[in-house]
């Protein structure tokens, strides 16, 4: 797509200051438009299927850590559960600033949804902890925590966001070249600032509970999915191991040896370059796996895959 310059100048014509100003105003509008659209949104769903009130706290928790140097803001949290009985399930969200947001949903049967939501913005630059709890016996047949995230591409890439306010030329301007240079250079600073900021953070969650065989998920590729980071977590009996991997060539591999069912164990963040291609071509898919060591059953394991 090529933008149109409102006014084109021609050799032999008289340069009208108002024409130049119109072009400057157009530049300022385009820069503001791009700055206003600097946010990227995504939705990540964290499964709760099979969670029981008597699970250990670690088994009822989800650690949600944004990779180093990146930032994202949770703009909405949704809790959806299907569980027999009428028990009040509580979701506590602790963000990295120490603020807590609480959602509650009273179960209404295995096929009737209990739902709560919050739109309080939660900022986190490190780990955010989501904890589910219920005061009495209850098993979540099916459920999910859905987070809506907003990332600011201009924050994540570490470059300042610049606006451009043109100073207009007029008929009395005696040094037109110098004045135009000043204006265009100021505009260029703002344009380059936006151009350098192209980190649109999106995230996916893959989670399995109470499993003893390999778990596999495919994730179609797409636009802007060339670089990824993954945070892996697991809870299980001490010494049990779960191996995380991406089957795509050059993908990551991470192993976690569990320290006990009362602790959430984490692997170091892994980074890799993935396919950045066609979502209709399964050959470009990422293939994520979680593999327990032979003879073990992992209480819960999950990975958050961050794309940029």
């Amino acid at each position, binding site marked *: 797509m090529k933008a149109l310059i409102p006014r084109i100048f021609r050799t032999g*014509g008289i340069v009208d200051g108002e024409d130049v100003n119109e072009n400057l105003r157009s530049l300022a509008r385009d820069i503001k438009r791009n700055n206003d659209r600097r946010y990227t949104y995504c939705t990540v769903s964290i499964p709760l299927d099979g969670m029981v009130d008597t699970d250990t706290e670690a088994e009822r928790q989800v650690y949600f850590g944004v990779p180093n140097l990146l930032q994202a803001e949770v703009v909405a949290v949704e809790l959806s559960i*299907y569980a027999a009985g009428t028990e009040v399930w509580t979701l506590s969200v602790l963000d990295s600033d120490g603020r807590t947001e609480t959602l509650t949903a009273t179960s209404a049967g*295995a096929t009737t949804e209990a739902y709560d939501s919050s739109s309080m913005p939660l900022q986190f630059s490190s780990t955010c902890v989501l904890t589910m709890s219920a005061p009495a016996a209850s098993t979540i047949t099916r459920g999910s925590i859905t987070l809506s995230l907003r990332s600011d591409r201009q924050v994540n890439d570490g470059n300042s966001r610049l606006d451009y306010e043109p100073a207009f030329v007029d008929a009395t301007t005696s040094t037109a070249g110098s004045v135009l240079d000043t204006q265009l250079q100021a505009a*260029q600073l703002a344009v380059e600032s936006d151009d350098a900021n192209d980190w*649109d953070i999106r995230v996916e969650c893959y989670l399995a509970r109470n499993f003893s065989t390999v778990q596999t*998920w495919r994730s*179609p590729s*797409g636009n802007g999915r060339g670089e990824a980071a993954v945070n892996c977590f697991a809870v299980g009996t001490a010494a049990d191991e779960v191996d995380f991997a991406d089957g795509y060539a050059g993908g990551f591999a991470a192993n976690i040896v569990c320290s006990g069912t009362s602790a959430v164990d984490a692997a170091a963040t892994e980074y890799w370059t993935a396919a950045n291609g066609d*979502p209709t071509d399964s050959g470009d898919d990422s293939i994520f796996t979680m593999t327990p060591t032979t003879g073990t059953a992992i209480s819960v394991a999950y990975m958050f895959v961050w794309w940029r």
Partner: protein
Amino acid sequence: MSLTNFTGTVTAAALNANFDDKTSTLSTQATQGQKDANITLQVVGLTTSTALALRVLDFTAPDDLEIRVIRVEVTDTGTGATVTATVAESDGADITMVGGPYSQSVAGINGTARETLDCRTVTTARRMCLVRGVRYRLTLSTTATVTSATAIL
């Protein structure tokens, strides 16, 4: 991206080139934020009698989003099932309110089979955009029991 500094006479060509350079870059940037993200629904042991509540994923669109593809992936040893993924506007637990279902099916499963609907090129259905703040439902259904079914937007 470069600017030609003006010295002496400002030529029309140089003036145009400098403005064009900036507007072209800005135009490119305007589309840079169009990045893809996936939403996944997986059901293990999907049957014809699986309660609707256990084979749906509800989510609220955080921004205006275009559905680029709908993929259905099924694992089973049989060949008789047809599994369909549908996305539609929803309100509450069980009610599809408005908007015709937008769906993709996969059949002839023997092992793992997948089909992907490219919503940008399909001519038999309308393109679908999710509206910010509206809750949508992704649903899986089947004509026979399958081991595992996954729907991905």
